[in-house]
């Protein structure tokens, strides 16, 4: 709620000053830095192959495919001592996989998992619990008058209830025509039914900004003040609710803060940049640094085709 309030707050005030402010792309020299290990381990209980990527950091302006870390040992163990060994996929890309038996999936709600990654003799560990998720009752399309869209634009809402009991945290992922909405501004996380951990909005339907944050945000190339209609007749939308740990909720909030930087006039209200926290640690505190995240989600989803 707060994020989009600030966004619209800024976009409003921009109106008057748009023609004064300006923005240009620059190419500053950045400090050189040693690459460090990146552990990208977001697992879920969908009945499909689970992957963990091990790569290294690269210079900020380098947009090439990250270099994989090969030859590591990657295992996940649950609190019943079952071990899941992730095997490198053979392309030396640093992708390690675990494939469930047909019709089965990874993990169970309530179980705790620990990750162990061994690279060049150094051991990195992390832990996470698979928390409960909630199911989506329906997805609707309705016309909502707002200056952000052209008139008579349909907006999608998903309808789901946060179960009773505070402290449920979710990552809601949306797909338009099978393509994941992957912009930083489209990251949609919830603490119970709302956006903030400091406000108890529990045991109700998700609040409107979360409900509506499944609409793609694409600027109209012909009108920079407006967005394209998110869904038109014939489009499909698929929504997944991933349960995440509290640490993952805060981690994703930080990713939003560090990656969805307000441009132009919005820079007035930019926060200082900080490194995003990690829950992966080197067992030797004086050893190599590591970044990345380990989380295990339970997922429930629902899709709908928009037919006007």
């Amino acid at each position: 709620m707060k994020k989009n309030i600030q966004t619209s707050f800024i976009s409003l005030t921009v109106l008057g000053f748009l023609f004064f402010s300006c923005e240009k792309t620059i190419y500053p020299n950045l400090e050189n830095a040693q690459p460090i290990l990146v552990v990208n381990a977001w697992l879920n209980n969908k009945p499909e192959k689970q992957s963990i990527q091990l790569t290294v950091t690269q210079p900020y302006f380098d947009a090439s495919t990250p270099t994989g870390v090969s030859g590591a040992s990657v295992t996940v163990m649950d609190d019943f001592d079952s071990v899941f060994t992730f095997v490198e996929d053979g392309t030396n890309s640093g992708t390690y996989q675990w494939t469930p038996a047909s019709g089965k999936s990874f993990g169970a709600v309530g179980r705790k998992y620990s990750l162990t990654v061994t690279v060049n003799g150094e051991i990195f560990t992390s832990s996470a619990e698979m928390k409960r998720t909630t199911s989506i009752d329906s997805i609707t399309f309705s016309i909502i008058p707002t200056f952000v869209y052209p008139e008579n634009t349909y907006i999608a809402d998903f309808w789901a209830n946060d179960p009773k009991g505070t402290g449920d945290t979710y990552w809601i992922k949306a797909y338009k025509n099978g393509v994941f909405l992957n912009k930083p501004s489209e990251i949609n996380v919830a603490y119970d039914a709302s956006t903030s951990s400091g406000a108890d909005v529990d045991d109700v339907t998700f609040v409107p900004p979360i409900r509506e944050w499944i609409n793609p945000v694409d600027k109209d190339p012909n009108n920079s003040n407006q967005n394209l209609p998110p869904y038109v007749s014939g489009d499909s939308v698929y929504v997944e609710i991933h349960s995440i740990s509290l640490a993952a909720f805060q981690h994703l909030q930080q990713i939003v803060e560090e990656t969805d930087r307000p441009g132009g006039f919005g820079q007035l209200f930019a926060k200082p940049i900080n490194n995003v926290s990690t829950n992966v640690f080197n067992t030797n505190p004086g050893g190599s640094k590591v970044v990345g995240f380990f989380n295990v989600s339970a997922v429930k989803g629902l899709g709908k085709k928009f037919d006007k």
Partner: protein
Amino acid sequence: MTRPLLVACIASVFLSFAASAQSKHTLSGYIKDAKDGEVLIGATVLIKELNAGATANVYGFYSITIPSGSYTILYSFIGYEKIERTVSLAGDQRIDIELKESTRELKEVIVSSEKDPLTKVQNTEMSVAELDIKTIKKIPAFLGEVDIIRAIQSLPGISTVGEGASGYNSRGGNVGQNLILLDEAPVYNSSHMLGFFSVFNPDAVLDVKLHKGAIPAQYGGRLSSILDVRMKEGNNKKFETTGGIGTIFSRLAFEGPILKNKGSFIVAARRSYIDILARPFVKALKDGGALNFYDLTAKANYNFSTRDRIYLSGYFGRDNFLFSKDQGFSWGNQTATMRWNHLFNQKLFSNITGVYSEYSYKLEFGNDDANKFKWNSAIHNYILKPNLTYFINSNNELSFGGEGIYYYFIPANTIGTTNGIQRDVSLAKKYNLETSLYVNNIQRLSSVVSLDYGIRFSQFRSFGPDTVYHYNDTVPGIRRTVKSFTAHKSGQASTPFGSWQPRFSAKVQLSEVSSIKASYNRMVQYLHLISNTTASNPLDIWTPTSQNILPEIGDQYTLGYFRTLGKEHEWEASVESYWRATQNQIDYINGADLLVNKFLEGDLLSGKGRAYGLEFYLHKKTGRLNGWISYTLAKTELQVNGINNNNWYPTRYDQRHNLKVAAFYEINKRWSCSANFVFMSGTPATFPTSRYTDGGYVVPYNANDSRGNVRLPSYHRLDISVRLEGKPSTSKIVRKNHDYWIFSIYNVYARQNPFSIYFSQGDQRVPPGQQAQTQAKQVSIIGSLVPSVSYNFNF
């Protein structure tokens, strides 16, 4: 200064008082402008024979006690004709004086060769910046809108993070460490339209004084500075209408006498009018939307007797940004001040001030009644402030009094309705009381040495009902979690925080034209502005001191050299250095959630700060060409565990060099022009070194985990303006009204000054399987020249 030393000082005052019990009499009165009866704050009274003097206080009152005898008394104020009176003083005498503005003929630049007895060189005050409204109106302004906050930014030691940022930074302090007073009422948000315009209507302002160091004991509550804005009292001679049509605002002020010589009033209003012009073209505005800001300032005073005068003043301002009838934001300040000046006798002047002040904002969103979000927040203040000034003799001026401030905070009243079900997620209200007592004496030890010393004692406590959370220890970079909590019953007071705040300054007169001054003061701040963004925004909240956020404490030391130059002392020059060490400075944990968060205190970090600098100031006060040059060399840093590897790091507004030049030139009777040049070295920025992919997103990474590791390019800008006076009266046509045009250009050479540089992956959607392109962008808030014109009138 230790307490025994203070006691000794106070004792010496009374001793000198007792010793001087010979035949002495008091000369006192008010000094005002002959044209409209406005008080002349800081006008001076010189007893020529004794070379002793006094200064008119903020109510225009002066008092001086001298042995009986015959004296020549000179009343003066810069820009006004002096008045000389011969007085034979055989008893207490009251002389009210009205000075006339000097009407300068071209070529004949009048500056009296008389020496003003109490210029900046000769009084004990230091680290003070004063601007009268006439000068402020001459500085070329952004979009032609005269702006007090921007004007004070042209003085040494004062800076800003850039255009659009509200408030100002004084000697390395943050925006929330300034106490901005409008007729003694605190103003919590000094800006309209975010930070582009200040809330003070220039038509209603009389005088602006900024204390950035050596702050007298009567002021407290903020670490960095006190900006004391005094409103005009209104013309007590005749009715007058002032107004103007600018690019942003239209202004109208009406003032006049209430019963002849008994009192006067002023009502001044401003409103932005872009929305009225745009209404036919913008559908949202026709449907009940709004985009406007306005303020109303009013003041009245009345003399009940020669000894009693009551002042009432008020301010009401609001910014409205509504994109439909019931969706949008609004915010604003409201203040009301009542003052009672009472003269117990010729030597004892008292004033009691009662203030109500409020800052609030409101947001409302929702598609329909079943899905709505309402949010409002406010800070209310009730202040009572008695102050007495005892003009003991020509060598001692003793002030003492107290201040009680009751705060009532509404951090967030938030009600969300989702799918028809309402959830009240409001935060608990907070109730606090700040009480202070102070005593201050200005003492002239000899013709060479003068002292200004005092002490302020303050206490701050909270009242229930409230819940105090106890947090686990700070792990750098991780938000703190709640360990336990204690609930307090309604009315239950907490253990107060208390502090002694010594204030001391001294002047050594080296010659008639030069002096050295030094000062030490301790300031304590119990309210904290919670703002983690580059510029403070209207949604930022103020939060009180508690067990988890300790009072901010600042100790400042200053040393300065002051002198006047030129045959006629038309130049005023000073060099001042300062050092300030602060404790309990606030910074924020990564990912801190500052709005509507009942565990806010767990997201705050606390550390220490240091700021130091050297300020040079050269001011030519009179002549056809006048103006000033101000240069500041400064540094301001913080050290907070959990940020920048626990090392010192520069604040976001740290500027090494800051040069300002303001020049005013009178071409002829109708044309005059002014120019304003600014150079500031770049403020710090944090650049990433690397990137990596996490959860599908490209995340920037700073391998050294540093803060402020890079400097932005420097900032410079030139503004000019030309003023054209309306046709003067001729023998044929007598014009009753007076009018003038101002044409100005802001940012003349259209420099794209960088406000910030940010890093992101851009707006484009990254196709599956591809890597995001990361880029750096430089933002200029004002990237072009901005011309403007305004028409102003007065009749």
